[in-house]
């Protein structure tokens, strides 16, 4: 095929920009140039830190230190310092684990599933959301690790290593599946995030003014030169990683739900758990993405890149997944009655009207009622309102896990073993401290790495499109 054949349309044919009414709302506002995008995003990591950054970091590190102290106290004294005991053997620890791991899911959804669905708006939020995934998985990993008591034995039941009787871990247990699911999820999320970072690290390297920065960014950019022969393999690898992360993210929370669903306990033993957990995870994760990005877009002056339209689209995802979660709550109750198992029905009546009724109604108001406010466009476009709702979504999803775990456990088959769980100060401080770890990691990330995928945002502007007049298109017929 020759160039002449490709350009069969005479060069006198001028390409007019698409009519205004057909043009989609741009993803980057004010028609910013490609150079502006790298200057603006990389600018967040260059120069002096904004005034609020250091106080925020000090606050987060103190919370993190509090968690460290609590964990040290727990390890030295034993799990008795927490409020859990028979019959509620899992309480805040596993609630926090499921809460954090669920938050991570939005990052993978944005980076992988929306990529496969060709949702171009993902480019403005995927980097921060993927970082959020990694940090949330780090927070999640802590809780199952420390809840076992003697954590120095962890080496024997995490990787398949035989114990002192030469017995291998047994693979019929969902708890072991969970180990593989969560560690694969953490690793693949890291690979995916890092792959996306490579071109941007090269941008940072080429902009760096100090020798140390140039060396460090250059070292981690692996010698990226933006070569198109490299981009060709890179884009294929990125597509494949997205294709692999999609079934992965669906499997991770399904397997987390197996921890409960495979047991015989009324309230846990249900087949709806895998899809219900995945929808809930995406719902909570988008809540957290909004909680992080709404203040950041103002503080870092990113309104042209993370636009109101981006926030609005994320509100729609919250509305959709929130509705799935609401449907799942209803269906659980229906099946508890329709299934004809008196224990199952008793467990569900007890959830809504038993001693933990308050947690159930917290969950319902935050997860079922709150998201439906997003049917109104006016409310989806009100940043303060969206921020407040996103916090309620986070609270509601924490309560969902609390409800599932604690209300199912506190009523055993034998009424003599019934109990009521109350958290201790160590429970509370460890959980609050985990936000310190999350925020510390996120603050360091936004200060030293490009918080928005520079090369990907450039790629969705009209200036990047060789067929658009802004991208330099002069005449038609080009393929």
């Amino acid at each position, binding site marked *: 095929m020759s160039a002449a054949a490709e350009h069969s349309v005479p060069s006198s044919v001028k390409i007019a920009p698409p009519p205004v009414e057909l043009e989609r709302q741009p993803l980057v506002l004010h028609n910013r140039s490609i150079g502006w995008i790298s200057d603006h995003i990389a600018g967040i990591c260059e120069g002096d830190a904004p005034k609020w950054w250091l106080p925020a970091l000090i606050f987060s590190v103190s919370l993190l230190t509090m968690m460290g102290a609590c964990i040290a106290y727990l390890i030295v004294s034993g799990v008795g310092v927490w409020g859990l005991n028979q019959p509620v053997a899992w309480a805040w620890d596993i609630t926090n684990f499921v809460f954090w791991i669920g938050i991570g899911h939005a990052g993978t959804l944005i980076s992988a599933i929306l990529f496969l669905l060709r949702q171009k708006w993902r480019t403005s939020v995927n980097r921060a959301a993927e970082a959020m995934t990694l940090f949330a998985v780090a927070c999640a990993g802590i809780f199952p690790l420390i809840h076992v008591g003697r954590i120095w034995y962890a080496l024997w039941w995490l990787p398949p290593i035989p114990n002192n009787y030469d017995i291998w871990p047994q693979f019929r247990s969902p708890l072991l599946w969970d180990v593989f699911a969560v560690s694969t999820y953490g690793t693949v999320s890291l690979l995916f995030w890092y792959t996306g970072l490579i071109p941007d690290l090269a941008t940072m390297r080429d902009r760096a003014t100090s020798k140390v920065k140039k060396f460090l960014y250059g070292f981690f950019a692996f010698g990226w030169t933006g070569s198109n022969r490299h981009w060709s393999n890179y884009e294929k690898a990125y597509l494949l990683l997205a294709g692999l992360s999609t079934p992965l993210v669906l499997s991770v929370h399904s397997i987390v739900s197996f921890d409960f669903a495979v047991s015989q306990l009324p309230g846990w033993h249900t087949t709806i758990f895998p899809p219900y957990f995945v929808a809930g995870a995406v719902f909570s994760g988008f809540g957290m993405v909004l909680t992080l990005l709404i203040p950041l877009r103002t503080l870092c002056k990113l309104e042209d890149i993370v636009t109101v339209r981006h926030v609005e689209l994320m509100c729609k995802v919250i509305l959709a997944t929130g509705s799935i979660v609401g449907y799942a709550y209803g269906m659980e109750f229906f099946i508890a009655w329709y299934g004809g198992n008196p224990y199952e029905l008793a467990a569900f009546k007890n959830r809504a009207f038993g001693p933990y009724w308050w947690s159930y109604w917290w969950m319902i108001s935050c997860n079922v009622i709150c998201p439906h406010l997003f049917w109104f466009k006016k409310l989806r476009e009100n940043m303060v309102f969206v921020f407040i709702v996103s916090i309620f979504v986070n609270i509601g999803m924490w309560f969902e896990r609390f409800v599932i775990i604690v209300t199912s456990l506190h009523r055993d088959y034998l009424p003599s073993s019934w109990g009521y769980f109350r958290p201790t100060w160590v429970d509370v401080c460890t959980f609050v401290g985990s936000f310190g770890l999350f925020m510390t990691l996120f603050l360091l990330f936004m200060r030293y790495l490009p918080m928005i995928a520079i090369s990907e945002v450039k790629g969705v502007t009209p200036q990047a499109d060789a067929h658009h007049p802004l991208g330099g298109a002069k005449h038609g017929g*080009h393929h």
Partner: protein
Amino acid sequence: MNAYGLMAVFETPADAIHAAEKVRDAGYSKWDVHTPFPVHGMDAAMGLPNSKVGWFTFLGGVTGYTSGMLMIWWMNAYDYKIVIGGKPMFSPFFSFPVSYELTILLASFGSLIGMFLLNRLPRLHHPLLKNRKFCAGATHDKFILVIETADPKFNDQETRKLLASAGSKHIELVED
């Protein structure tokens, strides 16, 4: 003084694509276009075949699945049999979740390693990265076409003429 290649700077993706088509049709083989983001249509303009990364992914995935199944069978049904609730010693069903996760894990590593191998990366030194003009543009907002001197068709005068005719305002010889 050895020269690495001739570099031509373009301002828009469309200009770069047209230049790439010209260079491709002129029959050059050792050349490349450096862009701040993947330019849609550039692979065809350069005449690049489909990337081979997928084979590495496939290899990784197959390794992950088989090693998962074999590991579980060997540990729980061969090396140290344990009866749990009268369930079979080995079944592909309970082994599936772990093997599935290992499939994805190794396929992801396969994709990434495949990408690096095919790209001959990591590479900590490159003649182009010593050029100021290149560094200020290729990862920022310029589209830079480079034809290596090692190309059998390379001729300082002719190649320069070709790049100028493609519309580049800045053509420069890059030192090695």
